[in-house]
């Protein structure tokens, strides 16, 4: 049982790191925002494995839901911000 949990933890951690890389250095801004939401969602599952159901619920509702919506509201109002140079070098 605990090897299953350890294997799940390893998979979740690797997926979180890959999603974080995509969010920080991806080319397109909507994909970066969705990748940040994915990091929040995977962190919420990891909180459940760490025996914290309260924190998991809060992170899923607030971190993965409301923050992504806030980003997309503002992104929708700032349509031409993408044309600027978004990555240095």
């Amino acid at each position, binding site marked *: 049982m605990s090897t299953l949990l*350890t294997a799940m933890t390893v998979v979740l*951690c690797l997926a979180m*790191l890959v999603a974080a890389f995509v969010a920080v250095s991806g080319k397109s801004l909507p994909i*970066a925002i969705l990748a940040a939401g994915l990091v929040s969602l995977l962190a919420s599952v*990891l909180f459940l494995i*760490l025996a*914290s159901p309260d924190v998991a619920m809060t992170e899923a509702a607030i971190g993965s839901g409301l923050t992504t919506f806030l980003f997309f509201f503002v992104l929708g109002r700032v349509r031409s911000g993408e044309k*600027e140079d978004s990555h240095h*070098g």
Partner: protein
Amino acid sequence: MISYLAMATGFLLILIGFYGVLTNRNILRMIVAFTIADSGVNLAIVAIGYMPGRTAPILDATVKAGDAASRFIDPLPQALVLTAIVISVGVTALMLAYAYKLYEKRRSLDIAKFTELKW
């Protein structure tokens, strides 16, 4: 073992978030990187309170009140992280409002263009 992995992932997420803040020039990308660093901090704090072999701190039919101290993990980091998550979404909303206002003034989201505070 699980808490080691979770804590290491939390620290790595903090580092990735800082890297994103330091090297990006688009303001919205910097705010996304702050969000990732926030998730990393919360993960690292919750991983401190985990004890292997024990369960979540909720009294129900399986865990009576008598043996609570020997079957529960530390409930204090969870209370702290709950507060931290809610406040981080408030701060993110405020950062986004300021980004919107900056774009309204200058029509640009490139932080190198805002040079009024430079010497």
